[in-house]
């Protein structure tokens, strides 16, 4: 846990305690440096923004041309009765800002569709845009603009009981994916010199076997030492075996060696047997997601980096290539049965190695920084250190634009989703609603008189969508269809375009 108290004011540490434990001071800084734009202060939109204001987003701007209506009072928490008739952008921004005095918030009382049509470039000032209830005719141009400017867009809506969330980000670069059960990085199958030296100085034998450790210290030999020595012996005695135990017979032989000097009741030898499963048998290899990042074109030595992330990736790639396909050591050791001295010594050994490794990476970072004509130190030491410590958790995610989604639909995923009974049909239904709205400038089933007639129109739209989004079945030669499509279309009409608060709240970021 980094020393959050050094970086943030006491007030912030007290109030934000519960979230700082999740994302640390650097995560909080990222939040506070962001300027979020919300289009349409609907129930869904304001609920999403609420969950950003409370943890302390730096700034927000709400763009909405509507006036607060009675209908808003039924699903939107950030309007109140005396506000009916006032600008919804203004009212919601007041009531959202009021929740956190450290957040700046403004509003633009204008229809977002107008702004998108006439002042698209004004969106380049935002760190991220949230769009709710935008018709396709506005969503497409907005998405294209933001995508080409590398500004993330989040599209969300609540439609009756159905909620929808879509991230549109050309490239999401992650250093710290924070997996649930992070793998400790012990390097037992390819130990570095200082680790090998330390582990080699121990005599695992009990006193009765001629060893030099009393029973207390013997039962407190760290399992790292036990596994290191056992692996050496295993390899020495079995030159025809896999160097890292793979088959059942090899594993059994290895465990025999591990437990050879145990009295039978020692916790540390037990821990060694357990730890073999995660630290010996799998051997050492780099995670696939990390390999993907390092093999990306943008990590190659000759590429021009578009962000600090890629400068660090270039540096790491060189490190990996030159250090024999290993990454910097993490530098921490999991708890284990051990006497304090040996545990602290081991911790120090891994820590010192990680410092050396980080220093090497830093050297490469400075090189690529210079190569890219960036000021020295524009990539901070701290950033590099954090990236090195979590290197085995790196990942880059690339999302397609809305235009790509519409023009070259991912038929594989949709067909599978429909086949296994998941949410595919609802995707088609929501697309049908959007199409209907583009044509009729209202939602299907908006008033009682339209319910029946709208069904026929929606069914026609649905058929056309099936032909766009699903393929022709190879065997039968027939167009694939969504089973029970009419059912979901009927539900869309039933809903008549209403937004339920709970579904909007559930779409919260």
């Amino acid at each position: 846990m980094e020393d959050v108290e050094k970086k943030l004011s006491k007030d912030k540490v007290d109030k934000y305690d519960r979230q700082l434990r999740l994302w640390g001071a650097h995560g909080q800084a990222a939040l506070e440096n962001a300027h979020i734009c919300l289009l349409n202060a609907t129930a869904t939109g304001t609920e999403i923004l609420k969950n950003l204001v409370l943890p302390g987003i730096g700034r927000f701007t709400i763009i909405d041309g509507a006036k607060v209506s009675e209908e808003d009072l039924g699903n939107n928490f950030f309007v109140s009765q005396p506000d009916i008739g006032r600008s919804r952008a203004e009212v919601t921004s007041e009531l959202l800002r009021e929740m956190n005095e450290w957040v700046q918030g403004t509003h633009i009382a204008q229809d977002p569709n107008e702004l998108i049509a006439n002042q698209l470039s004004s969106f380049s000032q935002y760190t991220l845009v949230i769009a709710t209830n935008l018709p396709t005719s506005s969503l497409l141009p907005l998405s294209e603009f933001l995508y080409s400017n590398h500004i993330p867009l989040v599209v969300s809506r609540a439609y009756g009981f159905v909620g929808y969330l879509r991230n549109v980000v050309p490239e999401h670069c992650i250093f710290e994916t924070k997996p649930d059960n992070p793998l400790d990085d012990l390097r037992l199958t390819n130990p570095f010199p200082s680790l090998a030296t330390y582990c080699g100085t121990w005599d695992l034998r009990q006193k009765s076997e001629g060893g030099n450790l009393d029973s207390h210290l013997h039962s407190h030999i760290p399992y790292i030492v036990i596994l290191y020595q056992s692996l050496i012996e295993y390899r020495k005695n079995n030159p025809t075996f896999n160097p890292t135990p793979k088959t059942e017979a090899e594993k059994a032989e290895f465990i025999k060696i591990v437990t050879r000097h145990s009295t039978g009741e020692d916790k540390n030898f037990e821990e060694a047997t357990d730890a073999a499963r995660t630290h010996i048998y799998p051997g050492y290899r780099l995670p696939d997601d990390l390999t993907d990042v390092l093999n990306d074109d943008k990590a190659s030595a000759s590429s021009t980096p578009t962000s600090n992330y890629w400068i660090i990736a270039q540096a790491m790639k060189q490190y990996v290539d030159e250090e024999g396909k290993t990454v910097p050591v993490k530098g921490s050791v999991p708890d284990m049965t051990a006497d304090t001295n040996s545990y602290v010594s081991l911790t120090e050994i891994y820590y010192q190695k990680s410092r050396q490794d980080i220093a090497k990476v830093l050297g490469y970072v400075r090189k690529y920084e210079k190569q890219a004509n960036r000021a020295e130190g524009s990539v901070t030491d701290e950033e590099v250190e954090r990236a090195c410590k979590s290197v085995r958790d790196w990942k880059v995610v690339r999302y397609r634009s809305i235009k790509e989604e519409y023009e070259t639909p991912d038929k594989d995923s949709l067909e599978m989703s429909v086949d296994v009974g998941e949410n595919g049909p609802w995707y088609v239904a929501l697309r049908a609603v959007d199409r209907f709205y583009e044509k009729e400038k209202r939602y299907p089933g908006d008033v009682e008189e339209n319910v029946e007639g709208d069904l026929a129109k929606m069914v026609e739209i649905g058929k056309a969508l099936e032909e766009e989004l699903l393929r022709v079945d190879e065997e039968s030669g027939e167009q694939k269809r969504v089973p029970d499509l009419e059912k979901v279309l009927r539900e869309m009409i039933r809903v008549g375009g209403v937004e339920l608060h709970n579904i909007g709240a559930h779409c919260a970021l």
Partner: protein
Amino acid sequence: MASQLDENKRWKGVFTLLNRNGPFAQEGFTPDSKDSQKLKNYLRALENDRGDPNCKILVIGAGGLGCELLKDLALSGFRDIHVIDMDTIDISNLNRQFLFRKTDVGKPKAECAARFINSRVPGVNVTPHFCKIQDKDDSFYQQFNIVISGLDSIMARRYINSVLVGLVSKDDDGDIIPDTLIPFIDGGTEGFKGQARIVLPQLTACFECAMDLFPPRTSFQICTLANTPRLPEHCIEYARLLRWDKDKPFVNAKGEVEKPDMDNIDHLRWIYEIALKRAEEFDIKGVTMLSAKGVVKNIIPAIASTNAIVAALCANEAFKIVTYTADTLNNYMMYTGDQGLYTLTFEKDKKEDCLACSGVEQVLTREVDLKQTLNEFIDDLKADPILQFSAPSVNRTEPPMTIYMPKPPSMEAKLRPNLDKPMSAFCEDGTQLTMTDPMMKGVAVIIRIKAKDPLA
């Protein structure tokens, strides 16, 4: 003021779904009949000349989940809402409990939450109860049509679950009398994860049915704390558990030694400083005020979005249960949001031998070394994943004998010497002990003693 609002305009979203049938509505949903007004009267708890019943809903907890639940229920059309919470507001609540402000720190959560919702949502009537859930009797819980909990402890959930299970009555044919069954929606969150479940007491899996999914928290071994510390946590717990009793650092005005109070900043600071010194002694890095606080208070990280997601889910289920507008969750959903977004919905089976809802007193056999003390026996049962007793009473069935009771204080004092006596003083192989626990209302568990063979 509120009466000037056009209810049909305001509740357009909710009423559209109540007025119209659809392919996903529950069987038996008949909006086209005159009973659709009955449903609206029920949801909105509106008094009317037909005498239609009114819905009363209870929210347990006015914290991270509770604040969200109150907002969600009020904006779903519910009008008669009660909320119960025994806590007062702390500054660290404000990053997600949005019904509270800095000036509210120290005030009761239930009261502040009710006040905020009542002023923001016209016409809603949230009634606060600033007390423990154990302070209310059966007749209090019986008045509600649905109970939703946003609690922060396993034990509290266990308690309310046992109360609601206990309220269910069956008729002579053994069928549940519908009015006595109160649906129980339970939500929980931790960091980026959460879950929600629906319990129809005695009909579907109850909270107790899944008790062994939450094993008791393991603590550090004393020998590690005393002799071989390795981690900052060891140094911190050393200060709290071992040094506090020795040094007795705080004495109150009456001259009594104060117990460690983790909300007292001076106590916290003392623990931090002792822990730091010890860490320095052993060359252990990483003791900070933040980590010390986290360890001694067992702090669980919490953010607004997870609470919003889970609460909205629970409130939506309540809405569907009451209105039949769509099918309800059957019966457990898990959500994780730390690596992308992932949810899993499945049906949890009712446990046939559940301690709370099986309808039959369970007999569990436990192997016991008769030489161990009663206190050790009780500690084992506290650590037992199925039992997880908190402060059990122990009675022998045959011949009858009250062996130990934690309350009332007079009885406890009288029976306390029994804690140090060996089990052989009260039982032999085959003896049955009847045990009850304050966290499981109306539940008795019979433990059949099987003497452990000392030679085995």
